[in-house]
């Protein structure tokens, strides 16, 4: 692994390596000294072309816990907003000596461009690109689900996948990088996935995706999912006629108090409720649902740091020259 650009291209082995490493990172975060020396002297640049305080501070905390130097580069108010190209920005970061670039960008594929163009040699971590992917979000979701799944089965989560788990993802799939990353990763890890959305908010061609499609949230809940992921819905989609009104959306596709109660009626005592944040309370998720014991939203946030620590560690800590032969672990 040189870059982390998407979960679609992430092998099962690499995905499990990140999740297993994240378990060890989570243990570090429980300690008094929440720091490891592993990236000492390495420079991680958070290159954010879109505002996202939560994702940025999560990556920043992760990098700092690994002792990396962190440079935050917000494109707003910088030369980038004055028309500097991605190429020039990348070359500037290369000249500064960035070892990793964590990039958030409004255009799908910008991280792939950065990684594949030869403008910079650093490891590239996609922190969300347009409506394409958000791989670390999917990894933290999978990490959260895996811990839940292991707890339920009384096993250790390390080394296991999500075989047998059924996950329902609800909302604006069309514009959601989280939905895409979640779907590919959950499938790689053996879970089955149902996407629930208004037909206008599903991408053209979604029939070819490896999942079930439903327009009916209540019917999907009746199938007994183990986890329900609610996606953020942006009110401005209403202006583009994706749905008639926020109220209608909320009634048909929101996780409201009635549906929260229905999980109990259906006997789904162990079904958890996820949300990538930030939430629109009262729109896609009711306050009571968000604050219920089923909700893993804060757990997701802290798991985000662990998963990002694991990603940075696995991308940056390894050999930087392929010349050195790998010694066998049992030869000393």
């Amino acid at each position, binding site marked *: 692994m040189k870059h982390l650009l998407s979960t*679609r291209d992430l092998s099962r082995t690499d995905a499990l390596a990140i999740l297993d490493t994240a378990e060890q990172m989570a243990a570090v975060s429980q300690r008094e000294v929440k720091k490891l020396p592993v990236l000492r002297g390495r420079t991680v640049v958070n290159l954010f072309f879109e505002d996202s305080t939560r994702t940025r501070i999560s990556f920043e905390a992760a990098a700092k816990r690994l002792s990396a130097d962190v440079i935050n580069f917000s494109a707003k108010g910088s030369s980038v907003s004055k028309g500097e*190209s*991605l*190429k020039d920005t990348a070359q500037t970061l290369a000249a500064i000596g960035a070892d990793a670039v964590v990039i958030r*960008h*409004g*255009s*799908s*594929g*910008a991280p*792939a*461009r950065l990684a*594949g*163009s030869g403008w910079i040699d650093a490891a590239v971590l996609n922190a969300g*690109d*347009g*409506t*394409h*992917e958000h791989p670390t979000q999917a990894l933290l979701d999978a990490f959260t689900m895996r811990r839940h799944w292991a707890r339920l089965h009384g096993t250790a989560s390390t080394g296991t996948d999500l075989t047998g788990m059924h996950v329902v993802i609800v909302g604006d799939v069309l514009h959601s*990088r989280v939905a*895409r990353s979640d779907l590919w990763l959950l499938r790689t890890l053996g879970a089955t996935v149902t996407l629930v959305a208004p037909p206008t908010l599903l*991408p*053209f*061609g*979604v029939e*070819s*995706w490896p999942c079930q499609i439903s327009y009916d949230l209540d019917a999907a809940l009746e199938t007994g999912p183990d986890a329900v992921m609610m996606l953020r819905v942006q009110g401005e989609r209403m202006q583009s006629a994706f749905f008639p009104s926020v109220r209608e959306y909320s009634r048909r596709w929101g996780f409201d108090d009635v549906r929260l109660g229905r999980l109990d009626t259906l006997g789904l005592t162990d079904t958890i409720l996820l949300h990538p944040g930030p939430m629109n309370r009262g729109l896609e998720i009711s306050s009571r649902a968000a604050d219920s014991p089923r909700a893993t939203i804060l757990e997701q946030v802290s798991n985000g740091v662990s998963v990002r620590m694991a990603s940075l560690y696995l991308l940056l800590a390894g050999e930087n020259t392929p010349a050195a032969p790998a010694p066998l672990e049992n030869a000393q």
Partner: protein
Amino acid sequence: MNTYLIRNASLLGKETADLLISDGLISAVGPDLEAPVGAVVIEAEGLIALPGMVDLHTHLREPGREDAETVETGTRAAALGGFTAVHAMANSNPVADTAGVVEQVWSLGRRSGWVDVRPVGAVTVGLEGERLAELGAMADSRARVRVFSDDGKCVSDPVLMRRALEYVKAFDGVIAQHAQEPRLTEGAQMNEGEVSAVLGLAGWPAVAEESIIARDVLLAQHTGSRLHVCHVSTAGSVEIIRWAKERGIRVTAEATPHHLLLTDDLVTSYDPVYKVNPPLRTAADVEALRRGLADGTIDIVGTDHAPHPSEHKECEWAQAAMGMTGLETALSVVQHAMIETGLMDWEGFARVTSLTPAAIGGVQTQGRPLAAGEPANVILVNPSARRTVDPSKMASKGRNSPFAGLELPGVVQATFFAGHPTVLNANLNTPHPVSAEESPWIA
């Protein structure tokens, strides 16, 4: 002017003959012609002689974007690609929507002397789609404009489109439509399909092209006018055009080399060299276009040569400009996609790259048979040579070739433009000299 004797060329890939070129004309065709005193003899054993290619769809960028291309560089590229005429699209800056601008482009072409440059006039003022440009003035100008297009933008207003179709009947003009329903393609980045869904790029649905073509062929039927459909890219469009032709509607259609070869899964790399409008489509669309071109539903190949400075491609996909270069690869791509697949022979190639485009554009001196007395617009092609496409070696200023690195067949060995060799030994020779009677106009 020199006299040239081309020996043992295969005419349209068929019988072998000699061609004698003098005074701008093909003066004789036949076996074992005698070389006149002072004639330059060109041995063309193994080469195919074809009428010079005519491109109905070229962006020469001048005036306004001389950093992307100039008439000089674009026509050098054209000559190397086997063209003897190109139609320069109207979306320059200023837009070619007045007699003044089209005459400027026309005289720049004359001065360059590499090919016949035929300006295309804008349909609407400033390509704004609001009111008709002075189509008559452009038709009457020295540029003698016959093809009108807002290419890059669609004439989406049905009333305006109807009026334009009607109006150009006065001078046997043709409206070349860029078929793209604007509301259905707001923010569109690539073909809407399985690939766009995965890549998270806003889709350009086939229906946005097909709905405009359907409307326009009905308008052409209603008005009895000539309609040309630029860069057809979908299987559905081919079906609509086939239907229209069966009903006798006066519609012609063009396909680009890139739409005959490339598909939208190339976008997976997010490399904007594959960003183009209309977008690369699916393998099924490519197949339908090839079949349509072979059976005559699609009349011609047009390059949609669209050079861009590198900074407009070395960036994020969404920020990148749309378009690809095509003049220097068109012959090879069409040979690869149509001839090597057995869908078409070289005679068919001449039809779709020379005879029919010249007829649509009303260019009397081009797209003629290889016969004595005809204007000597002739190219010699080595069909068995292969080469790897290297944009850095092209004459065009644009480096945005989607075919870079591909090994393709066919090399243009020589190009004769009005009897003058603009290309010899697959290299640029000299431009056609400016005639004395024209020189005051194009100084």
